[in-house]
């Protein structure tokens, strides 16, 4: 066995790591704590605990309208991005055509470019095509930006796929279409879910691109943004806390799905433990 024994301790580094973790989490903690503070978002220490701001939040219909709008756009974005992303991933993995590497770069561009570029370019496109800013243009913007996410994730999943499985399926008499449905897609299940959850989250949170494409109906981030202009109250802390909690919940769900799918004794798991004979 070639497992290495105890991990060496590094106290200074551990201290530094703790500091970095604190830096990452402290603002969120402050946010959550002050959502229960009667006297506002600042000052120290928070004195009066109240659930009042949450009550205000739940009665605030325009916030919930914007949540609904965001959900609609996010769901539609997931559907379109996964669909086109899957095709793009398949094309990158299996097809060769002139300009393929340019295509690959273009698909990945919205991931790495600042949102303002994507937002502005699509705004000009909308004007050019005579579209009015609305949830539809927002949807267009999200889908365009997020296809990259789907493509990346699904491409990685395709690479891990054992080509021999598809060959075996064809060898046994299945058509390419059947092979796709019975073999390829089920093997991509994990990647599809991962991509879907990620796209959903990113769409719900999207501001930069949405900023330029929004019409009369606000998405949640833009509704919050508008409120910030009017002055800040712990109600915004409250909705922020809810956003945080639901993000974490999504992440936990994702891990459950992945753990169940991979199984605790899968080869990958064992490999990670470094078990060689």
């Amino acid at each position, binding site marked *: *066995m*070639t*497992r*290495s*024994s105890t991990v060496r301790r590094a106290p200074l580094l551990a201290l530094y790591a703790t500091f970095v973790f604190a830096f990452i989490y402290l603002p969120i903690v402050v946010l959550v704590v002050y959502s229960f503070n009667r006297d506002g978002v600042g000052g120290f220490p928070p004195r009066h605990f109240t659930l009042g701001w949450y009550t205000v939040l739940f009665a605030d219909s325009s916030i919930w309208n914007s949540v609904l709008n965001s959900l609609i756009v996010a769901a539609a974005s997931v559907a379109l991005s996964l669909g086109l992303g899957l095709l793009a991933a398949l094309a990158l993995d299996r097809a060769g055509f002139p300009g393929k590497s340019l295509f690959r770069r273009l698909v990945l561009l919205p991931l790495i470019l600042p949102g303002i570029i994507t937002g502005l370019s699509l705004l000009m496109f909308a004007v050019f095509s005579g579209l009015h800013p609305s949830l539809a243009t927002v949807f267009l913007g999200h889908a365009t930006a997020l296809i990259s996410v789907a493509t990346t994730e699904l491409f990685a999943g395709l690479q891990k796929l054992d080509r021999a499985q598809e060959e075996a399926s064809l060898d046994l008499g299945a058509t390419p279409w059947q092979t796709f449905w019975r073999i390829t897609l089920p093997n991509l299940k994990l990647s599809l879910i991962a991509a879907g959850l990620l796209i959903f989250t990113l769409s719900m949170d999207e501001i930069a691109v949405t900023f330029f494409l929004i019409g009369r109906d606000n998405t949640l981030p833009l509704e919050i943004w508008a409120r910030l202009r009017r002055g800040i109250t712990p109600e915004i802390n409250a909705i922020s806390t809810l956003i945080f909690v639901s993000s974490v919940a999504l992440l936990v769900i994702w891990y459950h799905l992945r753990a169940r799918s991979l199984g605790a004794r899968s080869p990958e798991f064992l490999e990670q433990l470094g078990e060689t*004979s």
Partner: protein
Amino acid sequence: MSAFPANPPQELPAKSAALLELRNVAKRFAAVDVLKNISLNIASGEFLTLLGESGSGKTTVLRLIAGFEQPSSGEIWMSGERLDLLPPYKRRVNTVFQNYALFPHLSACDNVAYGLRVKNTPTSELAARVEEALRMVKMQGFAGSRPARLSGGQQQRIALARALVNRPRLLLLDEPLSALDANLRKQMQGELKSLQREIGVTFLFVTHDQEEAMALSDRIALLRDGALEQVASPREIYAHPATAYTAEFIGQTNLLRGEIRGGMVTCGALRWPSDEADGAVIFSLRPEAIRICADDKRQPSEVRFRAAVRQQFYGGSSELLEVDCGNGQTLRVRVPVGGPLAGEQDFVFSLCDPTRVAE
């Protein structure tokens, strides 16, 4: 601790001082005793092979000596000083890793120079020593190449040079030839052996291939389940295996199980006289010790039997027969090449051929 088997007797090659001593070394991982009370001496200048199956603990011994693990109990001494108290980078021991572990971002030359650079060796001396090391492994022309551009065999040589350039007192080789194909392996075996003879560095070689061990070593230490089964020279260990396990692991053999009663050994269809005490016995009989009987003359020092040839395996330089002595007793016989055999044959072996082995 007392539950662990005692160490087998080990004769050190005469006139050699012990370079490395493992004294009652044990290693425990989680709840598993990977090494149980190992005591072993390695002589200066010898080529010692740690032989064993996967999981026998041989790699663990290597890692303990290199310093990547600490013994759970026991001590390691080198040239009269405690070795196991030193961190790896202070030990005068170097390792050739199983997958070479060459640094991908450095050229072959820089890989070899690495150990000298970290000790701030002066540049002129460094250049000379690196060149000497590359020449030793016949890789002078590849100094500027990155490992990714080298073949498996070439990488192996660079790994060797990288270790040797530091002039270690002991070189550890962790199955260095297992990743090479058969012909390259044979070639590298020869080169390793002559290299070791030439520079005189003590080699501790780990392998699971017993043929390789026998071809290369001055002595073999056979490990089984974390304990030493036998430590002896290849000829000794082949001719006089101490246990049934050793007899079967090293070379091929027929294990004859039976009993002695009233001065006669009975193992299935085979019977011969013996002056040992009554009781259960196991004998190891090498396939090449059995011959096809040429004539009818009975010799008192021979044991004769008749058996039916069931299978015949052609091996180029010899043939291996599987013969049935009756009652399900099957023996393997190695005979010179001579065309297909069939039916019943007479076989004979000498009385002194079977070696008595422990369980």
